[in-house]
C-alpha cells in the first residue's frame, strides 16, 4: 500500500485500445507507434520509480505537425495524453496511466539554428539539455540551466518543470532563459509564443507554460538564450563543524554583495557517499561542506575567493580547499552532480525538492533529522544553499513496502515544514503525482481553483497529464476521480 492514489483507468478507453493504436498508425510512421507490451513497458515509469503503469500506447512523433495530428485525434477520441521527454522526472511528472497515450519527444532532438550574434538557439524540444551547451561551447557559449540530469533530460521536460540546477543562483532557471516556444494545444492547434525578442507582446504565456507540467500543451520547439561563458570558473570547498556554521556562512556571503554562480551544501552522509563514488577530494571529517563557485577572469576569481575566505573566517571552516586544475574542478562537480546516482548504489531514496528562506536553514535541517528519525529512517542532505532549494534524500529499502510508505510520510512532513517556514513544496522538480496531495498546504481553495480554471481553459476535458499537480478531490466535477 502506498500513500499516492490514482484515478481508476477508463474502462471504455482500455477496451478500445486496438482501435486507438490503429488510429495513431494512420497519423505517423508505423514504427513511431509502440504497441507491443515489451515496448510500452519501457515507458511505465520515470525517475519516481516507486510507481508504474503500462500506457495504452506510446507514440514518438518526428515533427510538430505529427504532434498536432496526434493530439487532435486523441482529443476527438477523448483519450488522455502524457507527454514525455526523457522520463527523468523525480516527481512522477511523466508517469503514465493505463488509459493514456504517451507522446514522447525523443525523436525531435535536432538543434535547428544557433545565432551567436543575437545569442539565441532554436531547438526541437526533445534535445537534451547538455546538447545545447555542447553545440555552442566551441564558441564559448552555454545554455544556463543545468539540472543534475542534464545528460539525459530534455528541454521539453525542463520547460514542463521549470528546471533549475546548481548554477541558477546567478543565471536563473528555465523560465528566465526561454524566449519562444512552439506549443501544440490539445485540439491540435499549433501556437507560437514569444519569439526572438527579449519581451513578447500581450499576456506572458511563456510564464504560464513554463512549469505547467505538460498540462496546458505539448512543447515541440524552443528558442533559448545562450550566454557567453566566463573566462574562468573557480570552485572551492569549505568544510564546517556544524550545519549552523555552514548556513551562517552562506547568508554572510550573500549579504556581502557577492553572488557566487553556485553555493552547494552537502551534509556528512551525502559527502561520504559522493566521495566514495566520485573521488572528488571531499573532506570526510566535517559535518557540512559547501561547494562555492565564482566566475570571471583569473584575477577576479582570485579576488572573490579571497573575499569569501575572509567572510567565512568567523564561521571557522575546518577545511578550505581551492581547485587547482580543471580536472579537480570537474571532479568536484562530478561528485555533486552524481550525488543522486551515487546514493542509489547504497539505498533507495526519495528526493525532496522543498525551498525555504535561507535564513531558516539550520532550523530546518534539525527538523529534517528529527522527522526522519521519528519514522525510523535516515536522510542525506544536498542543497542549492544559495537559493534555499533543499534536496533531502530520504533513504529506504524498496523491498520493504512499509519503509516506502514511511519514507513518503517523512517526505510529506519535511515539505510541510518547508511551507510552514515560508517556503514552498518544490523548487525545480515539479509537483507531479508526488506532491499533488500536499498542494492544499501551500495554497487555499481559491488559489487552486484559479489555477485549475487556467487548466480548464486550455484543456476543457482535462486530457493532458490529468492525474498530476492538483489534488484529486479538488478538481472540477467532471474530472473528479475515484481513488484506486
Amino acid at each position, binding site marked *: 500500500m502506498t500513500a499516492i492514489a490514482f484515478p481508476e483507468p477508463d474502462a471504455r478507453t482500455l477496451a478500445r485500445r486496438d482501435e486507438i493504436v490503429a488510429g495513431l498508425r494512420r497519423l505517423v510512421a508505423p514504427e513511431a507507434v509502440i504497441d507491443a507490451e515489451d515496448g510500452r513497458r519501457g515507458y511505465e515509469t520515470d525517475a519516481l520509480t516507486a510507481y508504474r503503469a503500462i500506457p495504452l500506447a506510446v507514440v514518438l512523433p518526428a515533427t510538430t505537425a505529427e504532434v498536432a495530428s496526434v493530439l487532435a485525434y486523441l482529443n476527438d477520441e477523448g483519450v488522455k495524453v502524457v507527454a514525455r521527454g526523457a522520463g527523468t522526472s523525480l516527481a512522477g511528472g511523466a508517469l503514465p496511466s493505463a488509459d493514456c497515450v504517451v507522446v514522447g519527444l525523443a525523436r525531435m532532438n535536432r538543434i535547428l539554428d544557433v545565432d551567436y550574434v543575437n545569442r539565441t538557439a532554436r531547438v526541437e524540444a526533445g534535445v537534451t539539455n547538455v546538447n545545447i551547451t555542447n553545440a555552442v561551447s566551441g564558441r564559448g557559449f552555454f545554455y544556463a540551466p543545468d539540472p543534475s540530469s542534464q545528460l539525459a533530460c530534455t528541454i521539453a521536460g525542463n520547460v514542463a518543470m521549470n528546471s533549475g540546477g546548481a548554477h541558477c543562483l546567478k543565471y536563473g532557471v528555465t523560465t528566465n532563459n526561454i524566449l519562444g516556444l512552439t506549443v501544440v494545444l490539445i485540439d491540435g492547434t499549433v501556437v507560437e509564443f514569444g519569439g526572438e525578442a527579449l519581451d513578447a507582446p500581450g*499576456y506572458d504565456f511563456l510564464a504560464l507554460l513554463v512549469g505547467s507540467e505538460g498540462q496546458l500543451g505539448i512543447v515541440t520547439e524552443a528558442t533559448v538564450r545562450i550566454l557567453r561563458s566566463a573566462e574562468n570558473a573557480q570552485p572551492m570547498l569549505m568544510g564546517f563543524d556544524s550545519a549552523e556554521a555552514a548556513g551562517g556562512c552562506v547568508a554572510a556571503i550573500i549579504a556581502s554583495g557577492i553572488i557566487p554562480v553556485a553555493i552547494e551544501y552537502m551534509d556528512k552522509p551525502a559527502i561520504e557517499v559522493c566521495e566514495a563514488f566520485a573521488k572528488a577530494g571531499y573532506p570526510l571529517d566535517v559535518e557540512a561542506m559547501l561547494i562555492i563557485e565564482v566566475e570571471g577572469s583569473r584575477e577576479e576569481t582570485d579576488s572573490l575567493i579571497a573575499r569569501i575566505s575572509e567572510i567565512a573566517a568567523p564561521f571557522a571552516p575546518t577545511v578550505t580547499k581551492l581547485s587547482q586544475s580543471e580536472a579537480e574542478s570537474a571532479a568536484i562537480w562530478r561528485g555533486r552532480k552524481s550525488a543522486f546516482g551515487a546514493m542509489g548504489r547504497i539505498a533507495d531514496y526519495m528526493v525532496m525538492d522543498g525551498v525555504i528562506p535561507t535564513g531558516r536553514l539550520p532550523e530546518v535541517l534539525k527538523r529534517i533529522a528529527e522527522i526522519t528519525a521519528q519514522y525510523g529512517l535516515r536522510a542525506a542532505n544536498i542543497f542549492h544553499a544559495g537559493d534555499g532549494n533543499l534536496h533531502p534524500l530520504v533513504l529506504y529499502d524498496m523491498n520493504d513496502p512499509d519503509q516506502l510508505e514511511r519514507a513518503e510520510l517523512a517526505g510529506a512532513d519535511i515539505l510541510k515544514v518547508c511551507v510552514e517556514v515560508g517556503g514552498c513544496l518544490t523548487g525545480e522538480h515539479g509537483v507531479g503525482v508526488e506532491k499533488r496531495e500536499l498542494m492544499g498546504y501551500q495554497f487555499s481553495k481559491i488559489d487552486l481553483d484559479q489555477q485549475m480554471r487556467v487548466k480548464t481553459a486550455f484543456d476543457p476535458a482535462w486530457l493532458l497529464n490529468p492525474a498530476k499537480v492538483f489534488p484529486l478531490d479538488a478538481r472540477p466535477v467532471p474530472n473528479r476521480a475515484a481513488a484506486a
Partner: protein
Amino acid sequence: MIVTPGDEAELEALVADAASGGKPLAVAGGGTRAGLGRPVDAETTVATSALTGVTLYEPAELVVSARSGTPLSEVTAQLAENGQMLPFEPMDHRGVLGSDGAPTIGGVAAANVSGPRRIEAGAARDALIGARVVTGRGETVKSGGRVMKNVTGYDLARFLAGSWGTLGVLSEVTFRVSPAAETEQTLVVAVPSIDSAVQAMSAALGSPYAVSGAACRPQEGGPSHVLLRLEGFEASVAQRVDRLTALLRRAGNIDAVSADASRDIWRDVRDAAVIRDAADALVWRLSLKPTAAPGVIAALAPLAPKALLLDWGGGLVWVALPSDTAGAGADKVRAATRQAGGHATLVRAPEDIRRTVDVFEPPVPAVMALTRSMKSTFDPAGILNPGRMYAGV
C-alpha cells in the same frame, strides 16, 4: 471617482460589487503610466494608493515584499540602505509620457517595467517571485512566494506581470533583489553607422566581460555613440574596461566614462531621455532581435523620426515620430517590425489615436483566443481595465 481601498478585504468587496453590477473599474497605481494603453471607459478608478508599506525585507535572502501601492522610491531607498537594488532597473515613464505622480511597485509589476539591465539581469517579470492579486471575481489569489525557486503550481505571478490590471488588481508583490554594484564605468564607442553599432554591441554582449548595458544614440550626420556598461567591484571593472576596449579597438574611437557620469548616462537610457526630449512626438517602442534593428530603422526613414534610441544591444528601439504622422505611422511601423519578427508598442499618442490604433501588438488569432479565455477565467464580468490592452479584453 477614485476609490482607495485600505486593505485586501476592502479591495475584494469593491471588485466583487463592481463585478455583480457589471460596472467597469479603471485600475491605477501612481497613475504615471495611465496614458499608456487604450483608453479605459470607467466611471470609477480603483487606486492602490492606500495599500502601502514594505511587508518583508530580508537582505541576506535577497527578497523584498511590498503592498502594491508602495511608492517605488520607498522600496528602492530601503534597498539602497543595504547596498541592494531591483536588478531590472525599472524605467520611469514620467518623462516620456509627460505624467505626474509617483510610480508604485505594483505598477512596475503590472506593466512589467524593465530597463537597460534587462539584458543581463532579466526583466521585472523575471525578478517577480510572488504576488497576491484580487481577481475580477473579487477573490484574492496568491501565487509564487518569497523564495527564489518555485514550481509549485502554475506561475500565475509572472503571468500577471505585463497584464496591465486587466486580470486582477495586485495587492502585494515580492521581488528578488540583487546587490548594487560597487562601481561602474561606461565605454563610449563612436561608430559610423547603426549597423556597426549593433555589431559592436553584439560583440560586447557576446564577450565574457559581463556587459550590463548596451545602448546606442544615433546622431544625425555624425558618428553614433555606442554605450557599454560594466559594473562590479572596482578592480574587476577596471580590468574588464581594459579588455573590452581591446576587443572593440577596431570598432571606433573609445572613451571611458566613470562612475557618476556613467550613472547619469544610464538613467537617461533607462528613461529614454532623447525620446522624451523630442517634444510632442508620437513614441513607439519596438522589440526585435538585435540584428533586425538597422533594417527596421532604415525602413522607418520615410516617416522622418525625430529621435531614435537603441537599448538591449539593439533589441529595443525607441522611435519618436512627428506628431502629425498619419495614423501614428502604425501601418509602416508594424509592417516593418513584423517582417523582422518583432513587435511594436505605441507608448505615447493622444487619446483619440489610441482609440483607433492598436497600442499593443495584436497577437495572432490563436493567441488572441487564449488571451480572451484567460481574461474570462480571471475576470468573467470583464470589469477590470476593460480594453486597456485589446478591445474586449
